[in-house]
């Protein structure tokens, strides 16, 4: 395959202090694709995203983004290259208004506050436009997740990393979040999605990895994995 991978993670071992969480993990995100990483709680999914975005530095292994080695770089420089990480638990700025949160999202691309980007984001998330002057802490869980994603989009990233976007949301709201994610992908943004909510994630993923105890144990097309016996047994039927 000649098509270049946007993100390439090569045998990365990482963790917190002396606690190793990820063990020799490798994965790729092809340009304009949606890749899902699924696994149970504590498998190391968040650690993987934190390592890619520079919050954690890998003990060993390499991470390439657009062909450039990024492991060991501080998070604000990695962000500059075009990775947007929407962290677990949304992490919106509670005391800033919705609009100010979006402004911070556009910190690296301030022209996006003035050109069509803000309008586009508001079209995608009309509720945010309604509440643009409210402090972000007053938003509901679903609205806060929308804001977190919108904030991540404001700088026009080439890779959007979403950590558990469905966490703590009502099923109806989860469905609308996933509609949004598909819409973002259609706009040409690559997505790396980490989920415990396996069914949703596998349904929309071009490619998916299963992470267990810090190791990749299975990979393949999302819909193929959905039919896999082990997946059905461990992740789907128990739900």
């Amino acid at each position: 395959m000649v098509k270049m991978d946007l993100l390439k993670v090569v045998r990365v071992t990482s963790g917190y202090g002396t606690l190793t969480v990820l063990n020799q993990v490798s994965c790729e995100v092809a340009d304009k694709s949606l890749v899902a990483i699924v696994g149970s709680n504590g498998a190391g999914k968040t650690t993987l995203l934190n390592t890619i975005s520079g919050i954690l530095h890998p003990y060993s292994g390499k991470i390439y983004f657009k062909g450039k080695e990024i492991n060991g770089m501080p998070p604000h420089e990695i962000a500059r290259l075009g990775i947007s990480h929407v962290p677990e638990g949304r992490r919106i700025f509670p005391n800033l208004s919705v609009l100010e949160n979006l402004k911070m999202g556009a910190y690296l691309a301030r022209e996006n506050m003035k050109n069509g980007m803000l309008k586009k984001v508001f079209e995608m998330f009309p509720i945010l436009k309604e509440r643009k002057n409210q402090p972000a802490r007053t938003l509901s869980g679903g609205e806060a997740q929308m804001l977190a994603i919108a904030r991540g989009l404001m700088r026009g990233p080439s890779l959007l990393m979403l950590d558990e976007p469905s966490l703590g949301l009502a099923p109806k709201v989860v469905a609308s979040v996933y509609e949004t994610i598909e819409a973002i992908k259609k706009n040409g943004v690559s997505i790396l999605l980490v989920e415990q909510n396996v069914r949703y994630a596998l349904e929309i993923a071009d490619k998916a990895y299963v992470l267990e105890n810090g190791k990749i144990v299975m990979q393949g097309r999302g819909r193929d994995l959905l039919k896999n016996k082990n997946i059905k047994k461990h992740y789907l039927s128990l739900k």
Partner: protein
Amino acid sequence: MLDVVAQSVISGLINGLIYAMVALGLSVIYGVMDLINFAHGEFVMLAMYFTFWIVSFSGLDQTVAFLPALPIFFLVGVLIYYGMLNRTMGTPLSQIALMLGVAMVIRSFVQIAGGTAPKGLPPSFIFGVLNIGSLAISYSRVATAVVSLVLLIIVHLFLTKTYTGLSMLAASDDRTAAYLMGINVKRIYALAFGLGLALVTIPAAFLMTYQHADPSSYLRFGLLSWCIVALAGLGRISGIIPAAIIVGIAESLVVTFVAPEAHSLPIYLLFILVIWLKPKGLFGRK
């Protein structure tokens, strides 16, 4: 009687507005970095001495004497951040000890360079007395209170309207998320610390239009500012004003009705009570 109370309250109100400006630098640092600058009072005192020296040597008016001091203080703040605080991030005890060390150096410096005698300046171009009934307030104090309000508004606008200011608030809300936005949080912290120190030069210059500086000035301004910040809570600048006014009026009433020596008592009592009963401040956002 009512007249005396009214006068005392008005005088306290003016003082409170002035105190708001004195506490502003401390509040910015605390609000952004969640760090109490233990040497804040010492920096206010140092800036008062700077004003004295600048005015004595150049003949500038006090009201503009902060202009040369401001960039120096900003630079010192940035250097202290990169040289000391950045290396001890996450160990608040060490940071407090470091700032105590800095405080001691400043106290010493002021004594060596300025001696122990109080330093006062001739009146600035603002002089005269404003009479409200039988109450006399010098124009210097009124002018200082007005400058305080203007400065607070400017800083408020800076924090809420500019990218740099907003990113300071964002870093204070969620450091990791700020990094993910592409904000260089360390640089923002350095700027905030520099700004916090630079902001003491303006109140110091205006205080010198009607006050003396002496080697113990730090004591008064340090605890005063901590008290205001505790009262205001971790919030936007607007919380400082009511907090400072409460402090100013409480102080003024005690001076009028109890004893002038007791002027610091209400401040500290208020401070301790607020920390105990309302540790997040009266006007905080969290």
